[in-house]
């Protein structure tokens, strides 16, 4: 045995040395060059007031390949269809397909002057909108962009001319299923003049979000292609039958834009399913800004945690993942990368299930619960760890930066963690056992309630834990119950929760979303909130032609909802864009279109 001891020692020493060498490799790889200071110069100013649309600007030089990450594969290419309405699809298509108004990083919308020289509301009774198409606008097969494209868009999206497939259709392919008919179902007539270069839209009923029509993240598809594949008469979308429109609709579902005429600064030259899209500059592009990149690639990486390593290894040049502490820290250590944590249109919230007999019955209880919750604590223990700018959100329809935003929540004390005030709500309403074991005025136990979050989401688990502690101070017992990754829908629609935390995506056009989330029976109104006054105010807001009045009506509705204490907005979810500093003009557009809203401007820094 003695003779073998040195051999053993040598073997272990060698092994230990190799392990240390491997570890050294990993630590030097993760440490980076420490150039985060110079690296973050480009996007850091994006959060400064008024800079969201112009930060990280710079002149570009010709050439270079830029790879941007898509977080999901694209299976269905018709963004206007319910099934194709995904964020990744919007990102990939807006490079090649045009729209009238484009959502911008500051949550405003900008007129796409390459497509239309003007889009004006010329009358309010009836509401009339006139679009003047840019005479240079052309699809890249040479077909001029015309009123026919507007006509095809309207008729396929209004829910009437190309209705949804009937129940008897087992294949469910005989009809159009637009993601939303909002606004299009109010159009009374759409007429062309000036040889198809001017489009006049007259509304049957006013529509406040008229700027969302023919754009707002949902671009045009070429009508002439739909006419050709469906056998319809060229240039006559007005007389296409439902069957013909369905054929066109399905064609755009199944085919990536490599197969048909597009009208963007780039054209998609290749789509490798589940892997990447390759774009090259489109020689037919007529727009003011000519693309300077030699090649633009959208690479599918479905696991966000792998994105920083791909960025570090220069396999991609920009990533747009949901931020987490570790992920942000990893990116900070990558040399020559600039990043921005912005506040997006997604917002986190606690929802109460009003179908629960106790929660639904007592408004005072709901107010007390929301008042006892400390959003400051929640923020500091979750997203505040990597974003110091996150604050309590004070509105259910607007986020800071949007015209119409008013903080209606914090003045009520909801989310303040003010225990004394919360207890007073309860004692005033004759609840007993406040702070120990809460009971309703008629002696029934309050709780235990469950707080549900999607499993694996550490941030939401923490949020439930803080809520559990805060409500415990009122004498309400809360159990934390995770939801399987694929079961959020089941839990929401089946009302299988007492309290739930998840996020909603606000839109640049808030009135349509308000109807879905707050109106009685709305598709997103899972907790069963119902108030006739709110329903009426939201309906009035949708029918307003003056955006300021529409916002005012929504805020009136919001005040009622805040008092009802149904949903407690927590904060805007941070968004995170990281880009190599040798490229410029990428910005954190936290709307439904994402950073690729301006790919024509992207390029190598001069």
């Amino acid at each position: 045995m003695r003779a073998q001891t040195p051999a053993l020692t040598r073997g272990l020493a060698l092994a230990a040395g190799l392990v240390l060498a491997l570890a050294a490799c990993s630590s030097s790889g993760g440490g980076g060059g420490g150039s985060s200071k110079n690296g973050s110069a480009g996007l850091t100013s994006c959060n400064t007031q008024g800079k969201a649309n112009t930060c990280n600007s710079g002149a570009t030089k010709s050439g270079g390949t830029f790879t941007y990450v898509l977080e999901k594969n694209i299976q269905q290419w018709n963004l206007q269809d319910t099934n194709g309405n995904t964020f990744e699809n919007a990102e990939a298509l807006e490079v090649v397909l045009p729209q009238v108004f484009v959502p911008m990083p500051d949550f405003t919308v900008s007129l796409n002057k390459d497509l239309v020289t003007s889009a004006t509301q010329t009358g309010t009774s009836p509401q009339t909108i006139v679009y003047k198409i840019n005479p240079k606008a052309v699809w890249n097969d040479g077909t001029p962009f015309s009123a026919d494209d507007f006509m095809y868009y309207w008729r396929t999206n209004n829910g009437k001319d190309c209705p949804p497939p009937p129940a008897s259709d087992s294949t469910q392919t005989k009809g159009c299923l637009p993601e939303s008919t909002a606004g299009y179902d109010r159009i009374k007539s759409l007429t062309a003049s000036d040889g198809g270069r001017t489009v006049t839209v007259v509304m049957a009923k006013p529509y406040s979000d008229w700027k969302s029509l023919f754009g707002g993240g949902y671009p045009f598809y070429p009508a002439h292609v739909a006419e050709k594949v469906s056998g319809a008469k060229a240039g006559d979308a007005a007389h296409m039958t439902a069957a013909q429109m369905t054929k066109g609709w399905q064609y755009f579902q199944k085919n990536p834009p490599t197969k048909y005429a597009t009208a963007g600064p780039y054209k998609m030259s290749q789509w490798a399913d589940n892997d990447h899209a390759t774009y090259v500059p489109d020689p037919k592009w007529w727009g003011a800004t000519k693309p300077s990149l030699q090649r633009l690639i959208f690479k599918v990486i479905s696991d966000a945690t792998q994105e920083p390593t791909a960025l570090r290894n220069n396999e991609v040049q920009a990533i747009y993942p949901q931020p987490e502490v570790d992920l942000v820290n990893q990116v900070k250590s990558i040399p020559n990368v600039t990043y921005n944590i912005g506040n997006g249109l997604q917002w986190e919230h606690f929802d109460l299930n009003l179908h629960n007999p106790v929660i639904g019955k007592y408004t005072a209880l709901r107010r007390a619960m929301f008042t006892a919750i400390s959003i400051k604590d929640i923020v500091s223990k979750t997203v505040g760890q990597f974003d110091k700018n996150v604050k309590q959100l004070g509105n259910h329809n607007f986020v800071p930066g949007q015209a119409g935003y008013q903080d209606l929540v914090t003045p009520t004390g909801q989310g303040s963690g003010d225990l004394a005030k919360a207890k007073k709500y309860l004692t005033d309403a004759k609840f007993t056992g406040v702070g120990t074991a809460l009971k309703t005025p008629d002696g029934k136990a309050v709780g235990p309630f469950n707080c549900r979050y999607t499993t694996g989401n550490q941030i939401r688990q923490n949020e439930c834990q803080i809520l559990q502690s805060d409500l415990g101070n009122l004498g309400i017992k809360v159990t934390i119950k995770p939801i399987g990754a694929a079961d959020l829908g089941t839990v929401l629609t089946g009302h299988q929760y007492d309290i739930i935390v998840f996020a909603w995506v606000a839109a640049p056009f808030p009135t349509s979303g308000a109807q879905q989330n707050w109106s009685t029976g709305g598709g997103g109104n899972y907790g069963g909130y119902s108030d006739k006054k709110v329903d009426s105010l939201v309906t009035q807001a949708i029918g307003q032609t003056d955006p300021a009045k529409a916002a005012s009506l929504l805020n009136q509705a919001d005040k009622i909802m805040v008092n009802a204490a149904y949903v407690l907005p927590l904060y805007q979810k941070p968004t995170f864009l990281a880009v190599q500093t040798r490229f410029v003009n990428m910005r954190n557009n936290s709307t439904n279109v994402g950073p690729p809203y301006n790919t024509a401007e992207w390029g190598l820094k001069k």
Partner: protein
Amino acid sequence: MLAYTVRRILVSIPVLIASTFIVFLVVINAGDPVANFATSRQPPPSKAAVAAFARHIHADEPAVQRYWNWITGVLHGDWGPSVQPNLDIGHDLFTRFRVTVTLVASAMIIALVLAVIFGVFSAIRQYTAADYTITFFGFLFLAMPVFWFAVLLKQAGIWFNEQTGSQFLGTIGEKSPYLEVDTTWNEFTDHIGHLVLPTITLALVSFASWTRYTRASMLEVLGSDYVRLARAKGLRRRTVLVRHALRTALIPLATVTALDVAIILGGAVITETIFQWHGMGEMLVQSASTVDVYRTMAWLLLSAVVVIGFNLVADLLYAVLDPRIRYD
């Protein structure tokens, strides 16, 4: 042996049917894709769209009918509808299978070659520094979680690229989306560069266990009478080792390798996710997270066939390699 093989294949059919039925029941009760569809989009889809979706994926049919339609459909080449629009499950399955086979086969070949070399070396140098070192690393690799080692290896790959000023080692996907100079050689090196890290990740765990098998088996054979006799006859050491000892020692390894295919396929799920290979592993993760019943079933069916097939191969290998065993 042919009769035995046919008998085994026939026995596998009811096993497949029973197992797929049980798994089918589990999968359709694992979540509600219709509810997910209704809540995962903004704005929420209309009631007509939700009903259409339920009909499209047959969610409105009884479980037994769904299973029967699925299994008879598969026999006719129809793998059923996916919750993902426009996804042809059959095409998806076999495209991904090819990707996974590339990864698994590369990993198995590397692991086998290394396991034999190091296992034999470890056996003939028993209780030396080399033996202890190989043993140490064998247990280290066995103990290491694949996901952790893969991340570590990725960092090492990036470090290698930074040191060499190249982009030889890829951390994402099976190949680069484009090549600056598109030649056959560049394409080949690009494939190899993307294969290195995931293959090492997947190979190491198998390498570790197979090295131990080879070592143990080799030691047993080296101590046997017939090897001693061969040496006594004056045969050269190399001839004794390679012709007489190693051939016998490899019999258990061959069968273990065939049986370990299922474990390697399991490892591929993690490896493919971390290295973003679009193979069977990614398919399983995506199918499970979206409650894609027919896609999950397609994965399970093919995996079951592969595992049953390799179990049969393992049994047959016994007979081929060991003349004492005969199947009648």
